[in-house]
């Protein structure tokens, strides 16, 4: 226990721990003096007391704690006679705490101030402002401009900088300098349907400065459920059923009946060797994401279907039958030169003249035979294309004789130009460079000259290579191969023309379309495979290329990732249990081809049975492969990048 005697006023000095200094002797474990340090930190114990003058005498004032008044008493000048060498007072604990505390705060402030000014606002400043490294992509694209790529610029204005603390800063605009979306970037899912009266900002989901490898795109399923009315606990248990034709939303661009090919054609002995080995022979699955683009015509179709293309010809002009010859023979001769018949007559006259002159006889020139009654070389009707172009009735000789012969005369004089004028005029734009691509004006003139002379055109050689050629009474075009641009252009031309029933040219339009688009003959055979579809505006067009599905823009899928799971241990991809058919089950009952007889692409039956959620949930379920929303769904609509990024990168490199 504490000895209470020791705390009496005459046996215990009063401790003052709140003072800044303490006795240096005590600090070195010696006996502390009575007085203790002076407030300024100097030793206050060099003398044992401070004598007091009483009357004319100095009296010792040493305290009882230190033995009371000393024997010697004060000196005559009032100084204490018990002097000691001074100690070095030490700071008290409280004082040390204060110094360290204030010092720590000051050091922090000093370091911040130093970092702000150290290298003129460079890396040091960034070190105390940046909340962390940017993700790799953002780090690259912001390297040139630094923080101001995204953040507001305050220059050197400290006041402006400070005031910015009280202003809201929406960085979405800066994000949109590089990122593009199919819809309004400030709406949920970039689409109006998701708008709930609240706009979004990029930083609501994408929090940067979390490190180079941070996943700033992650969203939890709970976050999806927050807005979506249909709450989904997990894909395998509560995801809505897939749509009836899933994943197809429209018919294919190219009519390829998987059912008939697989069940009939590929097993046909004639084509057995040409048949593909498995699905990947025609579909590049390994690197495919959602859409699996077919390998294309050359690799997938040409072997069986290649030979037929060059047999599908287009008759652009045909010389019809005329009742009378309305053409001016002299003009024709002037434009075309003499005909073979008149040339032979001239030769004959020359020979006779020479003989007569040599014999001294009178020269008698052979008179041209009197014109026989006109008999047209052609007994054909006009072709639908020229009938359409010239607005005449192909089987009404009276209506077309004059305009057609005038047209032939123009062809004689101007080559292919009148034909080009006509197609451009009907198309309302310059389509002739495509429609008449490769058509030689000289060929047209020669053909026209023959026709003007009421003769059949005799081609100098067989047309083995394809392209434009004249054949007796016709100007024809033979496609040079698949994807022939002229054939495509004529099909587009035919599709672009339409006429109402009461239109006087309606019959010609119908005849034109029948002639060009008929899958049974001519270049219309293209449409046997390439679907003719109507777009939203009602315009019809041929689908020349593979068309990835535009439906479900917020869904994603990787065929590449899944194909690696198949065909393990040498199982064929055609194996119904382990190959592609695991998911893509052929529907042999579907009226697949029937859908192509009409032009609504959304009225269709798929070649494949609709996929079911259960197929996916065989693997994607609790405890197996992950099944979170973001695995299959995207938040943004068609996210992309602005070309500015490339330009910016280029400028940086040049600089």
């Amino acid at each position: 226990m504490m000895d209470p005697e020791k705390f009496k006023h005459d046996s215990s000095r009063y401790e003052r721990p709140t003072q800044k200094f303490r006795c240096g002797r005590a600090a070195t474990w010696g006996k502390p003096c009575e007085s203790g340090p002076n407030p300024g930190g100097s030793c206050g114990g060099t003398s044992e007391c401070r004598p007091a003058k009483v009357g004319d005498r100095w009296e010792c004032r040493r305290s009882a704690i230190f033995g009371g008044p000393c024997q010697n008493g004060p000196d005559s000048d009032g100084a204490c006679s018990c002097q000691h060498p001074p100690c070095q007072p030490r700071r008290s604990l409280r004082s040390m705490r204060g110094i360290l505390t204030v010092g720590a705060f000051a050091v922090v402030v000093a370091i911040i101030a130093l970092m702000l000014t150290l290298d003129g606002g460079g890396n040091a400043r960034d070190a105390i402002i940046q909340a962390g490294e940017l993700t790799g992509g953002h780090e690259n694209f912001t390297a040139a401009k630094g923080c101001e790529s995204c953040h507001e610029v305050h220059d050197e204005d400290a006041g402006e900088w400070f005031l910015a603390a009280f202003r809201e800063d929406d960085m979405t605009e800066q994000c949109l300098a590089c990122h593009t979306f199919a819809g309004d970037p400030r709406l949920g899912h970039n689409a109006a349907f998701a708008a709930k009266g609240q706009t979004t900002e990029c930083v609501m989901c994408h929090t940067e400065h979390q490190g180079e490898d941070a996943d700033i795109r992650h969203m939890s399923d709970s976050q999806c459920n927050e807005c979506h009315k249909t709450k989904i606990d997990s894909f395998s248990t509560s995801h809505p059923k897939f749509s009836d034709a899933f994943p197809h939303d429209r018919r294919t661009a190219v009519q390829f009946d998987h059912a008939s090919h697989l069940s009939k054609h590929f097993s046909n002995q004639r084509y057995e060797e040409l048949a593909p080995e498995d699905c990947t022979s025609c579909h590049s699955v390994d690197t495919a994401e959602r859409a699996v683009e077919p390998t294309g015509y050359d690799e997938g179709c040409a072997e069986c279907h290649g030979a037929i293309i060059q047999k599908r010809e287009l008759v652009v002009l045909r010389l019809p039958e005329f009742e009378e010859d309305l053409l001016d023979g002299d003009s024709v001769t002037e434009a075309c030169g003499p005909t073979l018949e008149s040339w032979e007559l001239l030769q004959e006259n020359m020979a006779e003249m020479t003989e007569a002159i040599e014999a001294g006889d009178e020269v008698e020139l052979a008179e041209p035979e009197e014109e026989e009654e006109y008999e047209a070389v052609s007994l054909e009707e006009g072709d639908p294309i020229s009938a359409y172009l010239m607005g005449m009735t192909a089987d009404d000789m009276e209506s077309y004789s004059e305009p057609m012969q005038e047209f032939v005369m123009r062809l004689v004089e101007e080559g292919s130009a009148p034909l080009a004028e006509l197609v451009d005029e009907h198309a309302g734009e310059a389509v002739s460079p495509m429609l008449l691509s490769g058509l030689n004006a000289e060929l047209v003139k020669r053909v026209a000259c023959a026709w003007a002379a009421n003769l059949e055109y005799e081609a100098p050689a067989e047309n083995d290579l394809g392209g434009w050629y004249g054949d007796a009474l016709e100007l024809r075009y033979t496609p040079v191969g698949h994807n022939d641009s002229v054939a495509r252009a004529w099909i587009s031309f035919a599709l672009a023309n339409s006429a109402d029933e009461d239109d006087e040219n309606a019959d010609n339009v119908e005849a034109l379309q029948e002639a060009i688009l008929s899958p049974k003959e001519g270049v219309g055979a293209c449409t046997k495979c390439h679907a003719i579809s109507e777009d939203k505006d009602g315009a019809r067009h041929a689908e020349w290329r593979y068309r990835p599905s535009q439906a479900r823009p917020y869904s994603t899928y990787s065929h590449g990732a899944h194909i690696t799971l198949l065909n393990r241990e040498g199982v064929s991809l055609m194996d119904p249990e382990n190959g592609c058919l695991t998911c893509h089950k052929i529907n042999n009952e579907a009226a697949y081809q029937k859908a192509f007889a009409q032009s609504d692409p959304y009225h269709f039956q798929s070649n494949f049975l609709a996929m079911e959620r259960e197929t996916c949930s065989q693997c994607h379920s609790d405890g197996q492969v992950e099944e979170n929303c973001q695995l299959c769904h995207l938040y943004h609509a068609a996210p992309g990048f602005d070309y500015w990024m490339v330009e910016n990168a280029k400028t940086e490199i040049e600089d």
Partner: protein
Amino acid sequence: MNPIATRYTLLWAAAIVGLAVLGVYTYLAELALERSEFLTGYFLFGLMLALALFNARKKLAMAPLVRSAYWLAVHVVGGAAAVVLFFIHAGSVWPTGGYEQALALVFYLASLSGIFGYFIQRINPRRLVQTDFEVIFERIPAELAEIREKAEAEIRACTEETGSDTLARHYMETLAWYFRRPRYFTNNAFGGDAGLHWLRNQYRTVNRYLNDSERVYLNRVNELAEMKAKIDIHYACQSMMKNWLLVHLPLAAAVLGLMFWHVIVVNVYAL
């Protein structure tokens, strides 16, 4: 339940409720794609200022600002709550930015030093009571000096009375070291008994060389040494109870400094 337990129970309950509310708010805000960091950050900011005010309150002993014991309770519970709130606010144990890492590091050190101090304040007073002796910390040097003087006086008396210098030489060679200043600090700080053990050793060592009259002096010196051992325990325990603040307060001040800058930067660039 005693008033102190009631006080702490209520404060803990309030802290848990408050943290739960903020935790739920953070969760819901995250679901709604809203940013909860600002609210939790300002709560943390306010809490840190409130914790810092405890030190100011101690300096304003004259002001009627509720009893310091209440402030202490608030400081202890608030400090623990601040650590949890820090996790809620930061969303992780360790942030990614260099500056934020420095802030987190200093915050953790300040928190750890606070937790250490709290336990020291809870444990050491009991140990001091167990010594059955009281001494004011600031007076320990004087007490040691006095004990040392008494011990040396006993040795001198022994030499003069018995004419033997055995005890004097023993003192000079061993006990003088012991009496010179507090010994076995670390051992005493952690509740050890090394000082007394050393003393008993020295006592047994010299005791067999002394005659009866010398043993009387040895026993008196030993009593003084045992007294000094208790003072050593007081010194070690009270030092820890005071010195942890030498770490905690500067760290807390540094946290405040770093926190102010963090608040400014966040408001300038992230709001």
